[in-house]
């Protein structure tokens, strides 16, 4: 794992959080939608918040695809879950929302899960070595070198 790859993983977390928050902000301006008002849904992208939100979500998707091209799905997914933590922390420190003890436990569990995965190998190629133990050791040593 190079520094650049960690940046891509961070991008997944940050851009998905930014995209979702901007979309939510924009949709608040526009009010509720019903299934009878689908044209309104198309016009929603004219709202600058929604447009920015979509832009950030596209950036998130590019980062996500990039990460999947060199890391396991089960390695990348926990990184995406850090977005929940980021949203809660932004709400707490910027918007002064109160975080209940249950939610703090949830934050701790997610962070622990991400830590568990991040400490292991990022890529476990399936077909390179028939002996799985050796193969996983190889990936770990490649990790350590890069």
């Amino acid at each position: 794992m190079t520094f650049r790859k960690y940046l891509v993983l961070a991008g997944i977390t940050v851009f998905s959080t930014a995209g979702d928050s901007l979309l939510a902000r924009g949709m608040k301006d526009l009010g509720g939608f019903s299934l009878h008002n689908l044209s309104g849904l198309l016009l929603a992208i004219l709202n600058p918040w929604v447009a920015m939100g979509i832009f950030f979500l596209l950036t998130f998707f590019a980062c996500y695809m990039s990460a999947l091209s060199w890391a396991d799905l089960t390695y990348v997914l926990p990184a995406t879950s850090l977005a929940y933590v980021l949203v809660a922390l932004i709400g707490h420190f910027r918007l002064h929302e109160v975080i209940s003890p249950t939610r703090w436990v949830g934050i701790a569990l997610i962070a622990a899960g991400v830590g568990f995965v991040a400490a292991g190998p990022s890529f476990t190629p399936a077909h390179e070595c028939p002996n799985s133990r050796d193969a996983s050791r190889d990936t770990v040593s490649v990790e350590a070198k890069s």
Partner: protein
Amino acid sequence: MRDTYAWAAIGLIVLASTTGDVLLSYSMKQVGDVGELWKRRGLLAVVGRVLSTPAFALGLMAMGVAFYSLLFGLSWGNLSLVVPASASLTFVANAVAARVFLHERVGGRRWIAALLVAGGVVLMAL
């Protein structure tokens, strides 16, 4: 009865988004490291290669199905049930699917992580 519909929608969301994630991951593994490809052949080559992978289009379609199932689920069930239930079940389903279909080595470390994250997501939504 609404509960049954809500859980049916949750099941559909989990199924569709797991299918989507597995297909997208599979397609990107076929494309290979996009950073390397970008350096050698340029951005257009990367985009062309990704878009011409059939699994990518199928994955996007599955993600679309998951998104609309979420919208339907939200119309039948509470936000506080549908979103955390589908998100946390998706984490566990993805670990199983990645092991079975992508042959990723999901060892103890990643099982624990999937369960921790799934539990954490539920607690965050309470």
